[in-house]
């Protein structure tokens, strides 16, 4: 386990450094002079030089990379071109909205997907099971932005029961929660379908196993077998998939945030890109990448902790 942990952490550090290097070079990958693009045609050459120096673009490229990495590690991601506020501050304002959205979607996926899967497994091959299979496939294949638009049209426009845009205020939790319903649902829909299928499949594979037959032969109740044995076995892979899904949800949140015009990391990134606001793009993408890498690391480690077989194989290999 210890060797594995070291290797896995080492990999993570390398990936993060690579992402930072790439981001620091981003400015040069865009055609044209980045400073002129940002400042627009009216800028005087003097102004251009000032900004160029401020961004460190007059340094040799390796120095630029070094400065960016060192800055990022110290929590300094530079200033927003336009508003002159520190990028870290912009990100700190945006992150809570995105994280709340993604986590709510994740919770929805688990709270709706797991019972659906359990129900389908209980009634294997019934009409309800088949209908649910169809529905799940529909959910899985539906992109979150389509789901977002559909939900908007039905619940915000036609029925007019839920707000269409914005986040409400953090100070009023109920208001904030109501604003969260549609975007979180849109984001969760794919995962609800996915989790339902996964839970059904893993439960059925447990229920058909020899060891379930064994316990039935000894008179263990079907209820215990179903909920204690089969569900436990189904929950492990589901949790692993969900925790790695958090990264995917953060990505999906970008589109959903734009459609519901919620201030979050997604909207921050997209707006910064359209304004060629490089420091903000760099900072936001770096944070998203960090999320991605860390959630994957977490998923991997938690999976190992939960399943005793993986634990032992590791220690056998490590010994």
């Amino acid at each position, binding site marked *: 386990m210890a060797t594995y942990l070291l290797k896995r952490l080492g990999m993570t550090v390398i990936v993060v450094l690579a992402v930072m290097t790439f981001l620091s070079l981003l400015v040069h990958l865009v055609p044209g002079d980045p400073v002129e693009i940002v400042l627009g045609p009216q800028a005087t050459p003097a102004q251009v030089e000032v900004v160029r120096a401020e961004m460190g673009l007059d340094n040799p490229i390796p120095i630029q990379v070094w400065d960016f990495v060192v800055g990022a590690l110290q929590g300094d991601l530079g200033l927003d071109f336009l508003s002159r506020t520190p990028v870290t501050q912009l990100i700190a304002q945006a992150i809570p909205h995105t994280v709340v959205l993604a986590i709510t979607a994740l919770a929805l996926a688990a709270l709706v997907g797991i019972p659906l899967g359990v129900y389908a497994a209980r009634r294997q091959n019934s009409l309800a099971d088949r209908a649910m299979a169809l529905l799940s496939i529909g959910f899985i294949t539906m992109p979150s932005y389509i789901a977002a638009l559909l939900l908007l049209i039905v619940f915000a426009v036609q029925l007019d029961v839920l707000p269409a845009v914005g986040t409400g205020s953090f100070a009023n939790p109920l208001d904030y929660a109501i604003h969260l319903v549609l975007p979180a649902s849109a984001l969760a829909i794919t995962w609800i379908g996915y989790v339902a299928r996964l839970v059904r499949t893993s439960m059925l594979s447990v229920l058909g*196993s*020899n060891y379930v037959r*064994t*316990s*039935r032969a*000894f008179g263990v109740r079907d209820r215990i077998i179903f909920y204690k*044995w089969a569900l436990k076995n189904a929950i492990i892979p589901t949790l692993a998939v969900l925790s790695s899904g958090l990264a995917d949800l953060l990505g999906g949140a970008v589109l959903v945030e734009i459609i519901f015009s919620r201030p979050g990391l997604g909207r921050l990134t997209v707006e910064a890109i359209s304004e060629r606001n490089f420091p903000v793009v760099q900072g936001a993408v770096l944070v998203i990448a960090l999320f991605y890498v860390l959630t994957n690391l977490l998923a991997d480690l938690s999976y190992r902790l939960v399943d*005793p077989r993986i634990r032992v194989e590791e220690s056998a290999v490590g010994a």
Partner: protein
Amino acid sequence: MTDDGRIKNDPYLLEVDGLDVTYHSQGRALAALQDVTITARPGEIIGIVGESGCGKSTLSAALLGLLPPNGEVTGGRALYQGRDLFTLGPEERRRLRGTEISMVFQDPLTSLNPTLTIGSQMLDVLRAHSPARADRAEARRRIVEMLERVGIPDPAARLRSYPHEFSGGQRQRIMIAMALLLEPALLIADEVTSALDVTLEAQILQLLCDLRDERGTTILFITHDLGVVAQICDRVVVMYAGRTVEEAEVTELFDRPLHPYTEALLASVPSRRRRGSELPTIPGRVPSLAELPEGCAFANRCAHAEPCCGEQRPRYVEVTGQRVRCHLYDPESGHANLRQPSAATTGRKEQP
């Protein structure tokens, strides 16, 4: 249940009578068991032998009500202490399992839950039958005692181990301990020793014999191994292609096999006392379930076969205390070379 009087006076613990089991597979109905008849008195060890695929595991699954979803009991009955197992409700049947009838499965490697410690799996079994025994210390004591009996070293310390931390032989013994935990009256042991080496096998066989001697446990001992049958069984049932073809006391079966299939089996075993005498190969092959003949399933490999053998299903007839399903012993079959026709009396079940 027509003749209740006879059933009440029945000395048998288990009486399987004319059992038919069908598997539904790809739109076809496969007759996995046909007219299977087996009786067991309290305290007997009954060997059930037959080649792979002859339906031994199907029989045990049917008795416990654990057939796979595509399997179905389509005929006959199985009386346990006079009660037909196939007419019990699900809850009644569940209560019998483990406490009255228990089973050790063929495959020890996949028959234990890999994600639960063996202690908690065994606790589940105890709890399934009595909430009173949920007293943890008492339950633990029983579990440890049973594990000790089957020869798991230092059982108290190993309750928290997972199945994969035990060897194959140990897992088989844990399975046996689980099956015996509630002291069932009838134990079905499906090839329990085939995964074990000689010493372990001897230990397990001894354990089963002790169990019978001390508690009067009745054991259906399913095996390929005629040597083991000779060693521990009182009576033997020979199965072929889903049918019971012969039933006899062990000594009689080895000294005087009646059915040509049994004869062929014994003829090719050099010394019956030798261990590991797996069922030998006989020329020809067992018909598959899809191509079972109308008549005797062994007819295509039988030296004594006549036209009547392929056409008519033989009845299970009693011959001097043995039972055999063969036209050679049935005076009404019309077979040209009847053997001991005078000793034969007709069996219970008429041909449908």
